[in-house]
């Protein structure tokens, strides 16, 4: 498979990388820790540390080599491990913070940006181990730098664990409170899911599912800037079928590039290649914006009427292009809509065009869910729980992954501004509804799984 030595193709590739931010967003080593179990915290921690540092010792180094050889930036190097709730289930009086700090230390030692998997899977209900583990999440997030946490609360075949939903709302509030000196960054490292994905390489929700192999290299490719550019280069009168086709072709190019890097890196690390996750993940950099794609399609702002339709088409076309390019497309694949990480969405939120309600509608067709949304610090737990329950319901009924990553910013009110820095960006604090959800939420229990026929 070789191309002609074509000037146009070479310049297009270079322009995609240099001007339009085509990058490998993350290379994520998925690593099982199931063989690290022990009844003793110290022994367990030592095994975890040894295993991570053994398998990931060359990850950052080999990624840098590839970056140099192909001149394509690899933004993040990460690790996803087996949900720690499972690994710690049989520990006597576990010291969770010691374990979290061990994960943090191992991540730092091998030079990765984030380590995901401080997680629990409780869509059907919590074990005793899950309960004590979940209680440790806020402090674990506050006392570590690189550890990310997630909880799966619902599934299309399990229903919604409303006890878990309420506990999760409290985890989010507590994590934000414990990190209030950094605008609640603890909550930005936590996400809750419906139908969570076991091979997702993106944070905060990456973990190594119990169905995954010993280890694998999963890769996340991005490029909203490239898609925007491709659409902007089209005739303004091109119909939406043509626009969808252009998105597919662009997604194909992005995916083949990602797979090349992923397979080469896996080969050099001598581990199996897992999946490529083609997600359009925006960054605060100018032009690297999913909102910018909506504007290129012809909407004045993200949040204008028509945004949900535009996003639905985008998400579907990205998947179609990616599927053609690789046999192993997995993870979350689609378009992310993290508000604080997308310059166009930040602007739309500032103008008041993009609201929580519109975002909720958009999550029914995007690849994940309500993401990186700053909300007032005094939002009651029951209101946050209501928001989570709504999002879980969208995922459960539509058989898709949905998620909530919100940050209740301590001491700040709607309209005020918050800066997380780096890729996490900045955002205005969004207004929540002032209505009371507490009686509904306090009923607890489990919302039954939906019927899987009579679809209408």
């Amino acid at each position: 498979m070789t191309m002609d030595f074509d000037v146009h193709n070479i310049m297009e590739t270079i322009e995609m990388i240099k001007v339009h931010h085509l990058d490998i967003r993350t290379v994520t080593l998925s690593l099982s820790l199931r063989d690290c179990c022990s009844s003793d915290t110290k022994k367990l921690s030592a095994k975890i540390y040894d295993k991570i540092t053994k398998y990931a010792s060359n990850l950052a180094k080999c990624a840098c080599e590839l970056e140099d050889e192909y001149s394509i930036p690899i933004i993040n190097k990460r690790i996803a491990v087996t949900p720690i709730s499972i690994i710690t289930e049989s520990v006597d009086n576990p010291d969770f913070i010691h374990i979290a700090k061990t994960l943090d230390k191992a991540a730092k030692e091998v030079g990765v940006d984030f380590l995901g998997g401080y997680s629990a899977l409780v869509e059907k209900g919590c074990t005793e181990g899950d309960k004590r583990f979940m209680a440790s999440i806020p402090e674990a997030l506050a006392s570590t730098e690189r550890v990310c946490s997630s909880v799966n609360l619902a599934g299309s075949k399990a229903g919604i664990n409303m006890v878990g939903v309420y506990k999760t709302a409290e985890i989010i509030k507590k994590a934000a409170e414990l990190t209030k000196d950094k605008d609640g960054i603890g909550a930005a490292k936590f996400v809750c899911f419906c139908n969570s994905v076991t091979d997702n390489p993106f944070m905060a929700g990456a973990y190594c599912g119990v169905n995954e192999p010993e280890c694998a290299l999963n890769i996340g490719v991005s490029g909203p800037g490239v898609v925007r550019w491709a659409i902007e280069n089209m005739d303004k009168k091109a119909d939406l079928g043509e626009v969808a086709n252009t998105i597919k072709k662009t997604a194909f190019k992005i995916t083949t590039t990602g797979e090349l890097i992923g397979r080469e890196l896996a080969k050099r690390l001598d581990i199996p290649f897992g999946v490529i996750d083609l997600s359009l993940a925006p960054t605060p950099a100018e032009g690297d914006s999913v909102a910018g794609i909506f504007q290129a399609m012809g909407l004045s702002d993200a949040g204008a009427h028509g945004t949900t339709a535009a996003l639905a088409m985008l998400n579907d076309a990205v998947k179609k292009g990616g599927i053609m390019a690789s046999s192993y497309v997995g993870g979350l694949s689609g378009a992310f809509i993290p508000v604080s990480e997308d310059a166009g969405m930040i602007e739309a939120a500032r103008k008041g065009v993009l609201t929580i309600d519109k975002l909720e509608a958009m999550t029914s067709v995007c690849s994940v869910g309500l993401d990186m949304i700053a909300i007032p610090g005094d939002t009651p737990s029951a209101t946050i729980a209501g928001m989570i329950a709504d999002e879980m319901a969208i995922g459960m009924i539509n058989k898709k992954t949905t998620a909530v990553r919100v940050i209740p910013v301590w001491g700040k009110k709607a309209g005020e501004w918050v800066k997380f820095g780096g890729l996490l960006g900045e955002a205005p604090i969004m207004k929540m509804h002032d209505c009371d959800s507490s009686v509904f939420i306090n009923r607890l229990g489990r919302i039954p799984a939906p019927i899987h026929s009579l679809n209408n």
Partner: protein
Amino acid sequence: MTEEKIIVTVTGQDKTGIVAKIATTLNECKVNIEDIKQTIMQDYFVMMMLCNITNSPDSFSTIKDKLTEASKSLNMTIWVQRKEIFDRMHTI
């Protein structure tokens, strides 16, 4: 043994000695030039070379470092990339 090929792209203000300097550097590394194309794009000089580094005693990164140094002395921008990235992106 599979052949190792790279694409060298040089851009910037047109001047004398660009091809000579880059070709000399490649020769020093015993890299064979298999094809060469040049054009003007938006007032910029663009030169691309398809090179075979299989028989070079130098590693990819050494070759890249030497080429980067040569292009700096010419005040030009250079991209040195393995050819597979273009093959994968532009062919089905």
